[in-house]
């Protein structure tokens, strides 16, 4: 408990300090010291907001999340090409449908990641999430992206791998 709190305080403080230096861009003693004092106050008041609860193996999860991001960026590019194709095609090959599925993911952050990933990847947008049952309601623009989500479940597995909820 105590160790987790120390971690939260340290992380919040360094994030705040980094943002202060980045956004101010002034490096004289007065601005740096006043900035650090502000960071200390903010950290003291709100260190439990950024890092919530205690969680195992934070470092490994962060590393895996960093490895997940490039894949996700590539998926975004694919999504845009997919939408561009559907928009510009004269016959507009769309067949929208609403699908529902359940995931074994239970963590708050992992569900948010999955929901946002679904929205960013080709042809699907999350409509509703029921956190307790892990139920996702998704709008798909045609049959293939819906099947990719329902049958392959590649993204679910990736998110589960990142947050170690396999």
């Amino acid at each position, binding site marked *: 408990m105590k160790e987790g709190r120390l971690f939260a305080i340290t992380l919040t403080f360094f994030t705040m300090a980094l943002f202060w230096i*980045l*956004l101010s*861009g002034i490096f004289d003693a007065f601005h740096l010291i006043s900035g650090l004092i502000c960071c200390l106050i903010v950290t003291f008041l709100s260190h439990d907001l950024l890092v919530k609860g205690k969680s195992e193996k934070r470092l490994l999860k962060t590393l895996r999340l960093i490895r997940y991001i490039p894949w996700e960026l590539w998926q*975004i*590019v694919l*999504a*845009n090409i997919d*939408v*561009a194709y*559907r*928009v*510009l095609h004269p016959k*507009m090959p*769309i*067949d*929208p*449908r*609403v699908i529902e599925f359940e995931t074994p993911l239970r963590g708050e952050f992992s569900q948010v990641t999955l*929901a*946002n990933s679904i*929205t*960013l990847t080709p*042809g699907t*947008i*999350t*409509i*509703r999430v029921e956190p307790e049952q892990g139920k996702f*309601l998704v*709008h798909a*623009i045609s049959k293939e992206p819906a099947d990719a989500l329902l049958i392959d479940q590649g993204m679910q597995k990736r998110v589960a791998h990142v947050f170690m909820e396999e």
Partner: protein
Amino acid sequence: MVLIHIVTTFLLGAGLFFTFVGSIGLLRFPDFYTRLHATGKCDTLGAGLIILGLLIYHFFYYPETPLVPAKLIFLILFIFIANPTATHALMKAAYQMGIKPWRLGEERE
């Protein structure tokens, strides 16, 4: 320096293309949900590519202010988090209002 011009122009052009396609999709697609597919996705990548182009240009032509590219990176990051969230919020609101998703074969609005 010619290379930087080419890369910047390509990124800005691609960004403009995707934003443009998003707007066409907004006009062409049949209902609320499919229109959100067009805008929600294309705006994310379109804005991201345009900012990336500006970032590269600034980084090489104005190296005396390196904080500006760093701020632009954060801008991209926040757009990539905020945009799908906003799209999802709009979707959910529409769904709760009881707007029926359009199915293939129905009359277009």
